[in-house]
């Protein structure tokens, strides 16, 4: 499995292929469509991260000593960006996740989507992924 940095680089290279905004957004939308939806039983209030406009559900768990994420959103562009975050962060050591700089979002021109004022819940989701990794990492060590 790739390191977090390597996956980030891979995504940056993929996005370099797009010189039109619509190709880029179509790619994100398609990633949103292909990301497996979260099981309805997991879409509980304690897993919800409310943006003002779109919602994100985040399910974090540990398997074989690694932290995994599954997530969903009611808006497809948000879900596409969620898919990117999962691709980068899921399946790694808790420490690595907590320290991940996640610069790729800026490099692929989606920084505004992670602004806290964007109202899509993504900024809060990234924060929650790191907090969950921190908490799950602590349980692994204890």
């Amino acid at each position, binding site marked *: 499995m790739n390191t977090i940095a390597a996956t980030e680089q891979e995504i940056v290279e993929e996005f370099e292929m797009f010189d039109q*905004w*619509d190709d880029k*957004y*179509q790619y994100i*939308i398609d990633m949103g469509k292909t990301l497996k939806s979260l099981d309805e039983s997991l879409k509980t209030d304690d897993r919800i991260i409310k943006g*003002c*406009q*779109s*919602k994100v559900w985040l399910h974090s768990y540990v398997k074989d000593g690694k932290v995994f994420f599954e997530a969903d959103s*009611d*808006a*497809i*562009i*948000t879900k596409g960006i969620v898919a990117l975050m999962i691709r980068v962060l899921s399946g790694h050591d808790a420490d690595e996740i907590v320290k991940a700089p996640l610069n790729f979002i800026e490099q692929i021109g989606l920084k505004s989507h992670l602004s806290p004022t964007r*109202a*899509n819940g993504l900024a809060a989701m990234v924060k929650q992924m790191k907090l969950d990794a921190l908490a799950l990492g602590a349980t692994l060590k204890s």
Partner: protein
Amino acid sequence: MEAGVKSLFDVQKLRAEFPILSVTVHGKPLVYFDNGATTQKPRAVINSLVEYYTACNANIHRGVHSLSQEASAAYEQARESVAEFIGASSAQEIVFTRGTTESINLVAHSFLSPRLREGDTVVITGMEHHSNILPWQVLCEKFRAQLNVVQVLDDGTLDLKHLNSLLEQRPKMLAITHVSNTLGTINPIEAIVRMAKACDVPVLVDGAQAVPHMQINVRALDCDFYVFSGHKMYGPTGIGVLYAKGDLLNEMTPYQTGGGIIKTVAFDHTEYVNGALKFEAGTPNIEGAIGLGAAIKFVTEVGMEAISQHEMKLHTYARTLLKSIDGIRFIGEANDNAGVISFVVEGTHPFDIGTILDQQGIAVRTGHHCTQPLMERFNVPGTVRVSFGVYNTIEEVDVLIAALKKAIKMLK
């Protein structure tokens, strides 16, 4: 341009008065359809602010020096303009506030609070902006009064029978929007005020979404309070208006105290001035009031009737084209509409539509529009809202339709 759609004024010439309309967004010409949130500002308004600070800045109502006198005169002239603009009997009925929200809070605290008792009722409607829900909700919780909500019908109009039954319980206040910010519905406000008066119920009308689009006459309307914001009618942000009929302001006590509102102050007793100034403690938003005066001059020169007709043409044209789009569902179908179209497209989220439109340079509002209970009522997470202003054009509607079709194609 569609045949038969002719403007009542030269839109292109008028657009040239709005410097921001020539900016590009994501490399495309800005199409600004978020006028319900705030309008852009004409050069006359921008210049009035610059001129104020360039030539006339001083604190008001205190100085004997010339600049202070000039600034005070300009500020009071703006009050006169507002009074004339909405048909008030006197400038003394006009309080300058930060905006609609502050105006409503002022009435809740200074008018209703001393009158409210346990078991009383207060009536609002199901289409109110959060700003016209929360101040009343907070008071009702504090005094254990009941907040009653008039139902909204499927077409986005109010259930007037329900309203009447709630008025018959003699509530201590009716707070109602003139125009719904989310649906654009124009409520039959004259008839509603008459119904309230027949039951001796004081009425506050939230005119934030009405004042930019139609001629208002508060005397003909006969409401007790009428409130609106400057920034939604081409004026600056941070300035708003509270109209209070006749002597009402003299009966009310200020909810903010401080300098500028007193006759005498001693440590054991203070005497307040009468009228509007009593509610403007501290140094007010002087340039905001002056800018609002400039905005009133601007819309008056274009003509409220001409603005209204222009926006109606855009509204009718846009609705006709939108109707042909597969899966579109309008939220709010009232005949009387103040230039707002709210919709959802089956199988898409408003947030996604808004994002793809933004990429194409188009500014619309998406989300719940600060009317969450109304969204619940229509069982949608939010809507896409297109709201028109005086500078919008038929060509821009065409751009919107093409961009929306592209968004739907990408998203579905």
